[in-house]
């Protein structure tokens, strides 16, 4: 119990309570996130209904290949994060460290690819509010499509960036041997968070990239 004394915060009765608390807290936080993205998805639905042609046209200008690769990258990263949680639970130090490291790395890859895409859109003058020039019909719809694209993927990217930072922090702590099968809440809740960010992308990808594939 010597170890548990150091990690048990003063106001909890035992580690069990502490773990349950942190997990429930994370789930509730994820609930708020659902509502946050809910607003964006609702806006998307409303305007896709108003400007079907504009949205289709906007979607045609997406780099579907990069999007698909990014989807794969995130899914694989989720696998490694899950692996690290498993490692933390069972005391597999290698799994824990490598899982976190590769997960974070793939997150970074995703961000780089996203950056490439953003730059590409900038080159094509498709960034509403900053540089937007669209000569073809349905300019309004396309503009709103790109606006929502940047807002949605942007907020997603912010979430992922935060996720990467936390994973790195956890990685350092794990390297220093902070976690054990007895105490590894931080790994578990960062795992939850990571999967959530992943799931959001799973929704974003088809809605933004795949709505009009007949070219």
């Amino acid at each position, binding site marked *: 119990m010597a170890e548990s004394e150091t990690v048990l915060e003063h106001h909890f009765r035992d580690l069990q309570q502490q773990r349950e608390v942190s997990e429930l807290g994370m789930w509730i936080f994820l609930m708020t996130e659902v509502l946050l993205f809910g607003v964006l998805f609702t806006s998307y639905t409303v305007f896709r209904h*108003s*400007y*079907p*042609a504009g949205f289709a046209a906007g979607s045609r200008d997406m780099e579907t290949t990069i999007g698909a690769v990014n989807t794969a990258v995130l899914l694989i990263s989720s696998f490694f994060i899950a692996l690290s949680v498993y490692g933390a639970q069972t005391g597999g130090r290698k799994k824990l460290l490598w899982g976190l490291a590769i997960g974070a790395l793939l997150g970074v890859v995703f961000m780089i690819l996203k950056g490439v895409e953003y730059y590409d859109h900038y080159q094509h003058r498709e960034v509403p509010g900053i540089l937007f020039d669209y000569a073809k*019909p*349905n*300019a*309004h*719809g396309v503009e709103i499509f790109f606006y929502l694209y940047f807002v949605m993927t942007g907020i997603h990217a912010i979430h992922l960036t935060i996720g990467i930072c936390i994973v790195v922090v956890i990685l350092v702590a794990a390297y220093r041997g902070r976690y054990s099968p007895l105490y590894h809440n931080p790994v578990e809740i960062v795992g939850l968070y990571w999967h959530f960010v992943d799931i959001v992308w799973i929704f974003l990808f088809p809605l933004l990239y795949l709505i009009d594939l007949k070219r």
Partner: protein
Amino acid sequence: MSAIKMISNVSARRYRSNFATRLLLSVVTVFICATFSYSQPAPDKAALIRSAHIDQHLNQQVPLNLVFRDEQGHKVHLQDYFNGKPVILSLVYYQCPMLCTVVLNAMTESMSDLRFDIGKEFNVITVSFDPNEGPALAADKKELYVRRYGRAGAASGWHFLTGEESQIKQLAEAVGFNYAYDPSTGQYAHASGIMVLTPDGRLARYFYGIKYPPSDLRLGLVEASAGKIGSPVDQILLLCYHYDAATGKYTPIAIGFMRLGGAITLVGLVGFIVVMWRHDVKKKALTHSIVPLFLIPQLIPETASTEAHKVDIFFYLMVLVCGFVAVGVITLIIIFAVKYRRKSEDQLAIAAPQSMPLEITWIVIPLFIFIGMFVWGTDLYFSLARPPQNAIEVYVVGKQWMWKFQHPEGQREINQLHVPLGRPIKLTMASQDVIHDLYVPAFRIHTDVVPGRYTTTWFQATKPGTYHLFCSQYCGTLHSGMIGEVIVMQPDDYLRWLNQGGEGSLASQGQKLFRQLGCNACHTGDAEARCPSLIGLYGRTVYLQSGNTIIADDDYIRESIMDPQAKIVAGFQPIMPTFRDQLDQEQVLELISYIRSLGAQRQEVPPVSAPTGPQPAPVQGAIQQSESKGGK
């Protein structure tokens, strides 16, 4: 009505011992009764009081020494039947082919719905006013109706009498029942109705027609008995229901409510509301309900449109119902707080059990009241939202911080709207910049004016005068300065006003604009044209490229001008440029008005094939082919 019965049954039987329960329950009961009886349809009495009529001799003594014969042929005095109970009296004749049977049936039906039993709480006397009828006929009838009524003991309480002409005449005169023999048909012409008499033979209540709502009948009996029968809830009901002599019904009245609640004052609320309600029987449409009117003019807004009256009636009813609840709750709190105050430091409370039925009562009853309010409010809203077909259309443009009005005849005004009395006016509104809201308190209309779409509202003024027009959606610095007035004029004056010049009708201004912008270069009205024909477009179903259809209304036309790519008509190319930056809202409205004047076609036109033949266009030469060198 069964709701009332149910509630009072429940209250009377189940919670007899519990003071709080009872009080609360009676409070809610009253609301529900009030709500329901307000929504009763008015009876069609015109048909009923055609041949003869009943004069009310309220509170007069009926001679109880009159002599009749009972079903067995024995001589009886009327007073034999007045033994400390109220009496329902009906005058019929037994061979009557029609109305009397209906009266007896309705009586039986109503009485079957009462908690009171014939013979126990009250007696019934049915007297034939045909002197030629005898006890045998009476006995038949008695057997029939006693069986139909179906409760034990009725035979000893319901008496079917016959008698001599002199006696009948005296009785009929005393109660004000007029009838006449019609030799041509061999029938009597007479009114239908029944009376409730007090135990000592005075006329307490009349009920007209062929329907006697059980609740009214019950209240009549309770009142006639001077409180000897019925539950305390009935007494409270009587306080709140008022017998309306004109219709022979019990109607809930404000006075009753206020008397009950007013005794205990809520600081403020009653101070203002108690300012007297007035019984307004003059209003024909409202004979059956009561229009309470504030006497202090400062407390009510002007009422100057057809809908305003309806809103007011609803509002006052809501004030009554809600005021009653508020006063009730606050009264209870005060009573409890005083009655159960802590008298010594260690005084303990008295344990009182939880009560499931009570909880359910105060869930279910408000629910019903709320549904009533919801239905009424929604009904009102729908009538406020749907302008009549024949309305004059006035276009309104709101911009920071002024109102612009365009009459169909071409008149334009700023911050003033002239309208004729007694004609429905439909306002179609657009905003140039931010959201505004057109609000005319005297008409009780209130609609947001939203940029990017048209909203509508309507009114029909009932009183000439000048009324406030407010912007009530906050719209920036001078929001409170975005006010104007609506001037309601006599139709003649309005015509005179209209003829004071102007720039030609709105449609003709639109036509001018249509040409100026070169719209006619493409919208030629030809089958081969690059753009769809606009003739007969307004109100038609349009087939779109996307496969959807849309009705060509103001909003659609506006969108097609401002954002032409949004909805492409099937069979056409998206070649039209936007006019977003060239037109202001007023000009768009002119164009719409012009397109509208090109005729609304009923038939749906199949896609692509634009109508070919020449259409009667009210504005001559509007759509003729133009040689102009292509519009923008």
